[in-house]
């Protein structure tokens, strides 16, 4: 991979240009055309930053809230926000609300498929919308924290801290879900998937998606400044299930899940246009999160990576009626995002209509906003303070190896 680059640029040089309002910024879509027209070398010389974007359901998201102390003080041990349980095993008045948590009395899947109308993601959306949210809390009471019950409205404007803290977002690539069962439609986190190969769900912005434009995590690492739900946020760690050592195509792009990011950002600056609570029929609650990441064009290699197009990115087609749930079988095949976005893919000789879950329109919007921020000198590129684990670490997402407990329940 080591070549002599003709046009290496540094982060400092790019930021200096941004400061002067001279940086050339294009979206990952525009970069494709530019490289096609002018070649990698010219594009690398010309362009300073390429912006990416994605907006789709992202479980493993949640928010940290510090409510401040009541009078008298209370060490909250159980809490509900608009009837959605929040985690309070952190401190006295620090709460964590996760997006997949349903409302306390939700009927779940007792009548299948359950609707899951309101959950943690909706609470966070309401907070971002600056709506009042009802906080009900209980405690056992201590000498220093005597209070035992609380029922009050809170608002994001008056919380001490309220920040999104998402352990896993921005999957580099993802499965395409199909249903081999001839008996019934299935209800999954990939939406409704129709029986007998009746539909195929996919969930990536493809050529606009952040990690697909920096396949080896050369510029996206810990400390990278990003667009997060309308605010400026940061990558704070590798995401859970980060799995860099998956099979890759010749262009370096992984052919399945692989890389992920853990991201953080201030709820108070966010916009509900780019954060939405979501209800997946028969599956549960989650949230859709908008993320955009700027990629500095340090050299020709980065220019080549950011010119990746849908036709060159493939995803595995996986049966979700049985194989996925039981960790069995192999993908039924691989299809490109160009095929997925054409509306039909062909698997086992059958034409299957495709269903996107990730909003490409919002992904474009995000890449466009980020481009504007940078061009206006409001957003600077942050060099990672540490890189994420790369494929040469051999790191791979492992299944749980169960070690039965004698006398256990399973």
């Amino acid at each position, binding site marked *: 991979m080591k070549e002599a680059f003709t046009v290496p640029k540094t982060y400092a040089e790019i930021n200096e240009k941004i400061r002067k309002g001279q940086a050339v910024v294009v979206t990952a879509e525009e970069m494709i055309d530019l490289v096609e027209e002018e070649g990698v070398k010219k594009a690398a010389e010309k362009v300073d930053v390429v912006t990416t974007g994605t907006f789709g359901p992202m479980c493993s998201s949640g928010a940290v809230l510090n409510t401040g102390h009541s009078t008298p003080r209370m060490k909250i041990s159980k809490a509900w926000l608009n009837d959605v349980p929040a985690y309070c095993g952190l401190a006295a008045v620090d709460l964590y609300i996760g997006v997949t948590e349903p409302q306390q009395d939700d009927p779940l899947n007792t009548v299948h498929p359950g609707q899951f109308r309101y959950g943690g993601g909706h609470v966070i959306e309401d907070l971002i919308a600056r709506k009042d949210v009802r906080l009900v809390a209980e405690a056992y009471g201590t000498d220093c924290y005597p209070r035992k019950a609380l029922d009050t409205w809170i608002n994001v404007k008056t919380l001490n801290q309220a920040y999104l803290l998402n352990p896993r977002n921005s999957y580099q690539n993802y499965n395409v879900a199909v249903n081999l069962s001839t008996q019934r439609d299935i209800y999954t986190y990939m*939406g409704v998937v129709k029986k007998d190969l009746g539909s195929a*769900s996919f969930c990536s912005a493809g050529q606009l998606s952040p990690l697909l434009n920096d396949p080896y995590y050369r510029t996206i690492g810990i400390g990278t400044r990003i667009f997060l739900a309308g605010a400026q946020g940061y990558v704070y760690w590798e995401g859970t299930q980060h799995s860099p050592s998956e099979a890759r195509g010749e262009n370096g792009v992984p052919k399945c899940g692989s890389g992920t990011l853990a991201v953080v950002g201030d709820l108070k600056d966010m916009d509900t246009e780019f954060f939405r609570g979501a*209800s997946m029929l028969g599956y549960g609650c989650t949230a859709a999160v908008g993320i955009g990441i700027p990629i500095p064009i340090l050299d020709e290699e980065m220019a080549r990576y950011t010119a990746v197009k849908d036709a060159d990115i493939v995803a595995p087609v996986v049966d979700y009626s049985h194989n996925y749930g039981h960790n069995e079988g192999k993908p039924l095949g691989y299809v490109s995002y160009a095929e997925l976005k054409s509306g039909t893919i062909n698997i086992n000789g059958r034409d299957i209509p495709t269903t996107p879950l990730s909003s490409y329109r919002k992904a474009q919007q995000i890449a466009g906003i980020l481009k504007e921020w940078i061009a206006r000198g409001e957003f600077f590129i942050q060099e990672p303070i540490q890189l994420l684990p790369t494929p040469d670490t051999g790191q791979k997402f492992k299944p749980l190896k169960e070690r039965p407990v004698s006398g256990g329940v399973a």
Partner: protein
Amino acid sequence: METRRVVLRFPKHLLDKPITSQLVRQFDLEFNILRADITQESEGLLIMGLTGKKANLEKGLRWAREQGVEIQPLSKDVVRNEKACTHCGACINVCPTDALTIDLETRDVIFNANRCIACELCVPACPFRAMEVAF
């Protein structure tokens, strides 16, 4: 000209009669079949949009009723809350009439209310509850 979306139920003995084509020819109407089914009771169910002059529409529907067809207007409407819709596309595979489609160029999800039969399948299938029933 006006368009009405109607639900037509044909009893068994009318199933092989060319009622729809007569309706169109005699009353100068255009039709757009949104859904056609034979139900378990072997009754024919047809949901369609009829377009034509108001007077002709009324005459035509009266005539069809006289032939024994049961006719109801589509009473409910399913509407899209444009602010809530993220244009993801998660709804397009559940819609039986292609009232929800994706523009392959712009990637916008298009809701064509004229094709909608208010079956409500998209209502719970939309992760953002952007499809709403309006009475």
